[in-house]
């Protein structure tokens, strides 16, 4: 991963009209506070020393999913050319938490951004061969044009924000 790759990723997010913010592990809570409104649900991040603030409900119920304004999850990979994040389905519920809220906040380590699909699929091949069962290549919010014009937010989030964790 080079600074060029990060810049390309940011350009792609810009094109998709997806917001992004850089944050340090210490600054994450403040960044999330600025992005999310109650109720916010989340899944604990798999990064050492990086915790979600207490006000994020990390043990949601189906009712919480239904009511959530925002869902905060880790993203396993960023794909620079496309501005995509890879959302891994895990037993602790990343898939539903990233899907039901109006806003999905994807927290991504800067070092996990790869240039393009060839690198992404090398990584994904390894993931699936080692037993992981689900990965969504998510690019921007959910959308549909089925009702006569492009509308953001069909069944999934209406908005996506990527927080890039600087290390």
């Amino acid at each position, binding site marked *: 991963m080079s600074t060029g790759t990060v810049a390309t990723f940011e350009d792609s997010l810009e094109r998709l009209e997806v917001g992004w913010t850089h944050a340090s592990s210490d600054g994450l809570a403040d960044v999330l506070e600025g992005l999310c409104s109650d109720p916010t649900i989340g899944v604990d991040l798999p990064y050492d020393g990086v915790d979600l603030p207490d006000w994020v409900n990390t*043990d*949601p*119920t*189906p*009712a919480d*999913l*239904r009511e959530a304004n925002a869902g905060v999850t880790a993203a396993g990979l960023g794909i620079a*050319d*496309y501005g*995509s994040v890879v959302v891994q*389905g*895990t*037993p*602790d*519920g*990343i*898939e*539903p938490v990233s*899907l039901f809220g109006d806003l999905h906040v994807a927290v991504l380590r800067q070092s996990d951004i790869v240039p393009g*699909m*060839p690198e*992404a*699929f*090398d990584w*994904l*091949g390894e993931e*699936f*061969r080692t037993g*992981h*069962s*689900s*990965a*969504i*290549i*998510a*690019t*921007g*919010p*959910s*959308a*549909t*044009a*089925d*009702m*006569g*014009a*492009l*509308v953001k*937010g*069909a*069944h*999934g*989030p209406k908005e996506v924000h990527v927080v890039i964790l600087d290390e």
Partner: protein
Amino acid sequence: MSKAREAKAAKIRQLMETEGDAVGTSTRGFNEGRYESVQTLDDYEGLKSEARAIKEDAIERLPELIDQLRETVESNGGTLYIADDAADANQYIREVCEDKEAERVVKSKSMTSEEIEVNEDLEAADIDVVETDLGEWVLQVADESPSHIVAPAIHKSREAIADLFNETFEPDEPLETAEELTMFAREQLGELIEGADVGMTGANFITADTGTMALVTSEGNARKTAVVPDTHVAVAGVEKVIPTVEDLRPFVELIGKSGTGQDITSYISLLTPPVESPTVDFDAPDTPLSATETDRDFHLVLIDNGRFDMREDDQLRETLYCIRCSACSNVCANFQHVGGHAFGGETYSGGIGTGWEAGVEGLDSAAEFNDLCTGCSRCTTACPVEIDIPWINTVVRDRVNRGEVSELDWLVEGLTPDEEPGGVSLQKRFFGNFETAAKVGSFFAPVSNWAAGLGVSRDIMERFLGIDARRELPAFQRETLKDWFESRTSRVDDPVRTAVLYPDVYTNHVQVERGKAAVRALEALGVDVIVPDVRSSGRAPLSQGMIATAEDHAHDVYAGLAEHIDDGRDIVVIEPSDLAMFQSEYEKFLPEKSFERISEASYEVMEYVFGLLEHGADAGALSAGAGEEIAYHSHCQQRTLGLEGHTEAVLSDLGYDVATSDVECCGMAGSFGYKSEYYELSVDVGSELQGQFQTDENRDRTVVASGTSCLEQLDSLLSRPTQHPIQLVAPRR
């Protein structure tokens, strides 16, 4: 007009009126999006070839890959079922649902499930089926069928959807905007998903190595369908299996761009079910997901339904490479004007729809719409897996022809020296043997028009041959290009090259002036020209699905040109559809080496002029433009061959100011625009080109076009004269 033709014309007319605008706006948008989107790829052509190679290999090794997939799916904890046909698949799916005591199945969009009509089957068993893709749901509410394989409700305008929802659901406030309609649907469907017992999806691809399926979506309904209920049934054709996860990459990069012109759709779900994600049990709304016992069940139902037979069929096999992206629908001028309700069969629509319908439903369903493919070939470069879609349509047409019986063969007797076994419709036999009609036409010209010369009135022609009386017939010239050429002496001293100007039927008999212009232009550039007596290319019979006849032409043409090629002469072709025969279709008819020789030796006439000028020929010998404003329409097959730019470059270099049309096809397409059942569609398609050439900016421009058909169509649609670009640049005498 015969009753069958009148009925077909009426259906097309009605769809053009009711659905044409909505379909046209969206498909043209998708198509333009494709052109823009593929430019973001470093190596688009390379990626397509890679995708193609993966599919070729996968279909070749399909039984082995399915065995491997069965092992991986079972070791993952799922079940693989291979269904022979629709009934078999439906029975299995119904039993899965009944075992779960399912009351409601939620579905994400799947054409394969449309093919087997699983909704009807489950509903008959009192199981509620809900389509959660917004477009599919609109159709479910409206009780209509998809008009497009990717955007199923493309034929419905926002206003029509609003009316439908307001009448059906009577919301407190009438719905109006796309945003309101979408949010209403999201809410309604969200509740239905919450209470679902089984989630059914399709699968765009399934990898044999890990049992991973890819779902290409944008709304998020497939994600919810797969994650909320504990039972997931995926339904897909056997052809969806590819070897490895890494093999997904070119498809993921190509499918959105090729289809709706998106760089990538919002979600590519890669799932190896049963997935680890917790189920979401809305019946226990206050039990945390962490405390929910997740015991998922996964059934992959792979459907044969004719596909293994297609795999054994040398002509239809390519259809199985199709990734259902819809590029061939969106790029198709005819599809843009009528949509899948006319240009489609039982399930599948668009160019490749013919192959699918022939393979899974049978020839009857394919025959319903097969003739709407004019062979313009614009889909061949749009297809991300490089399927020769016009060829599949031609093959199916040939097979359909062989099933038809005609009692009126006497009408075209003597005009149809073809190789066909009988059964081909009179209309097709007439157009397929156009070279013979042209010879007769020139013989009678100009003392009487050719139809009278044949002793056939326009009324008879319309009734029995289906030649629309509203279409002006070509005026055959008494002196053919060959006659003219033989009566003169070449004046080139010390020629730089020797070229064989191929006398295609139209140039030889109808548009003789463009042939003479080509001879003058080439000679002015120092080229010695020969106009030999060679048979027509076979394009006419091929476009009628008369493959044996076309092949016979190919052998004769090659025999007639081989010595010239051996002698180092260049083959210069004026008519792009004939050049496309030499450079594309002849590959199917000639030995490989012969095909390579004729393909490499042949040039489009303006491409040839371009090459001569590049190699130092004196442009001053041609007619300079001095800023003359030109409106240029290239030819569909010419653009597929990548030869549009040469004409533009030559004209610009000579000082012409060129504006080029960007419609995919003029709508005439050889015989298509003459046929009474398609005349109105042809004119409707042509109206786009007409519109472009009548804007304030273009209305005074001199009109030039490369193809015979394009010139005929433009002549009928515009009040100003038209000509081939070679006539513009050729010295006047």
